[in-house]
């Protein structure tokens, strides 16, 4: 298979790889560019662990060809930090997953973070149902999702105020 030069713009940097045209974006990121933050949890685009932002829109990098992403600005989990308040700071979404125990084993976390960032940029103050809808393409086997919702709500508060927050109240069902 001939290998062509593929130019990708990833996390603000332009990178060139040499790969055949059927190279998946996920493989290009993980193997050619050493960006192993995006994970492969399945073979059929069902787990969401490989989600990345293409021009701000979450897509599955296991279901995209690298060649077809040459005109996009790609953001992986490695590129989320530093966008809000300086190069060393975690994005509020990342802070939320740290502070609210949204990550256990952490394997699905990159995909959830990408979906969370996309959600909060689109809808800075989502309801619980909107959070569930936005995260429904990401699977987590550890958390039972509850602490992930709290992580997203924590991030939403931080996005809204851009200021440190007290821990937010726990999610309760309507009749609690």
């Amino acid at each position, binding site marked *: 298979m001939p290998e062509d030069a593929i130019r990708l713009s990833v996390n603000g940097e332009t990178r060139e790889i040499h790969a055949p045209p059927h190279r998946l974006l996920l493989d290009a990121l993980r193997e050619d560019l050493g960006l*192993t933050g995006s994970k*492969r949890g399945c073979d*059929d685009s069902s*787990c969401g662990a490989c989600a990345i932002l293409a021009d701000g829109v979450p897509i599955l990098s296991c279901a995209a060809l690298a060649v077809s992403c040459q005109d996009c600005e790609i953001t992986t989990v*490695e590129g989320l930090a530093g966008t809000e308040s300086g190069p060393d700071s975690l994005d509020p979404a990342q802070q939320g997953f740290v502070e609210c125990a949204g*990550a256990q084993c952490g394997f699905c976390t990159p995909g959830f973070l990408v979906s969370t960032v996309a959600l909060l940029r689109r809808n800075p103050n989502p309801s619980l149902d909107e959070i569930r*809808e936005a995260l429904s393409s990401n699977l987590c086997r550890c958390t039972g999702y509850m*602490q992930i919702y709290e992580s997203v709500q924590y991030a939403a508060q931080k996005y809204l105020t851009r200021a440190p927050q007290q821990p937010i109240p726990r999610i309760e069902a309507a009749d609690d």
Partner: protein
Amino acid sequence: MTDAHATPPAPSVIGNPAVILDARAKVAGRGSYTDDLSVPGMLIGRILHSPHAHARILSIDASRALALPGVAAVASGSDAPVPYGILPIGHDECVFAVDKARYIGDNVAAVAASSAEIAERALDLLRVEYEPLPAWFDPEQSMCAESHWIHQDRPRNIEKEYHHVFGDPEAGFGRADFLASERYFAGEVNHAAMEPHATLAIWDPDERLIVYSSTQVPYYLHRTLSEVCDMPMSRIRVIKPLVGSGFGGKSEVNPLEVAAAVLARKAKKPVKIVYTREEVFYAHRGRPRTIVDLKAGITREGKLSAVVARVVQDGGAYCGFGPVTVLYSGALLGAIYDIPNVRFDGYRVLTNKPACGAMRGHGTVNVRFAFEAMLDRLACDANLDPADVRRRNLLRAPCTTPNGLRVTSYGLPECIERVVEQSGWSQKRGKLPLGRGIGIACSHYVSGAANPIVRSKLPHTTVNLRIARDGAVTLYSGAADIGQGSDTMQIQIVAEVLGIRPARIKLVAADTELTPMDLGSYSSRVTFMVGNACLDAARKARSRIVEAAAARLNCPATALKAANEVISSERDANTCLSFAEAAALAIGSDEALVTQGVYAPPAEARGGDFKGAGVGPSPSYSYSTQTAEVTVDLETGHVRVDRIVAAHDCGKALNPPAVEGQIIGSVYMGFGQAMQEEMIWCDGRLMNPSLLEYRLPTTLENPHIKSIIVESLDPEGPFGAKEAGEGSLAATIPAIANAIYDAVGVRINSIPFSAEKVLAAIREKERRVPGAAPDGAK
């Protein structure tokens, strides 16, 4: 140190929220899992799986595969003919099938090549000649087989059977006023950990093997590699990177781990193998399909008088953990309540399907479903409140159950009360409108198996603690954090005892070259056992540091406390030394202060002496009570689980958010098994080997889960702690089953509770009582 008053007293580390150790790396995409590792010259391995469920292997021709440019090695049965297995009594599998393949997906050969594409092409070039044999797929047929046994030394395909009687069950039934006898089914489920299994094996030029693997049991992997590769353990190093969870699926040695090692040695190069998701399902080791024939009786007052269970587990083609799984289903059958008369007949049956194994709630889950559903039925027959029936059958702890399980702490009564109160049980049960219902159930689990898999008198775990002259603390522990936060727990315990900030402590973990032996992350043992070893090591270090400080400060050691990075007098805070100053005094002219902590369960916790008594005993047990609320669509039979309230007695929550994460995660997994997960087989072929078709619950189906921590303070647990990671799972399924009954008056005895089954039961009820709305429970 001059003014200890300058700093406010540090809050206790134990019992306060602690961010898990590697959370920041995980959210930044810097967490390194096995598949994230690569080394120069690394080859990619792929495994050839049998297309036949049961077939003799007549020949394997690798010549065309070996001729393909880029192929470095091909391995098959003769390259690693030593049989292995997690149990000493079950060394019945080879990494590559030697004489015959025993399930579709069985490992036949493997290839290492310079790329995944070449490795896959090479698999296609392997020529294997099979002679298909009759295969066994149904356990009840398999256990009657007269010929073509799956393993020649297992007549009638029975891997193991156990028969236990405690008390006099028949006499117990004679005293009962209400009896029930039912057959229950549970479908087969898989752990579906998000990280597919991965192994990187490096063959060192000095003829040493370095293996990175996504494992829950580095020590058992180390042992098995030594046996199969016929190399001393000292020439093998096993390292566990971050693991993307396990739930039991990585708690025995998986074929890819041995295959990568065999290929690396043959190719003399590093070899990485990563399972596809389909391979994960076929590697399996999940919860077996189970048939439970159950009979139980209660008196008019709601007192359980006897229970009899016959359990058949469809174990698949190899032993694995099988005998342990079936023994757990008997050992924990009656031990949650005070039941004087119990009979258990358990059969682990071989079939031509992937081997089952340990999965969260190991062995206890399907039997707990049957028992708690039957108890609900008996309560209704006796016109008693199901919550109240559970209250009337409590143990009087501390006690020893009829089958020899020592109960040292028992938070079940409080779990029941908290859940009844928080769920609004009394206002809801039997009072919700038709189609809506609430159910209750309980469960329990071990805090570590009291007996090791390989019988030995050695400690179950050892940790080493090293304090350097500058006050830096390093903990060396073999425990395998697989995402549950056990690394953080260990640091919390050491920090608490030494009175120092957790940030001062560095953890070196799960590397057999550097860390002492720990048995692994299974049977919910790490908090209790490794936690106790950390406590032991830290107390020894503290005592030496405090004694050195006492000598310098000229006061008795008993008058000193260690807190807030300071060793100070209880009476006069100005009489003090910093932790680092005191540590340097204790080190003296040594290189460092080094202590060792160990844990072994006490002899009295190790159970009775009947056959099979070794499984079930634990130094301590967790308890859980749950209510589930459901809405049932009368037209379609579809059940929506709206809310689950789960109270879990974890002894003491060392890190409350982590404990809540374990409770909620267990409930979620129980919900998945109850409502939608099932491995569907057709003649040994899996019909749904993907996460989409297997139907892992997403955010859209998952119910609202409220977790309640109950702390019974176990007398032997570290700071009173016991397990939190498994015990809650089993209660979820029967709580949902009982809620369905409360909603529409039908009992579904088969997991999962699919719309088809519920609708059929509603129709059947309508047929039996023409014109009657399905309101039996109302």
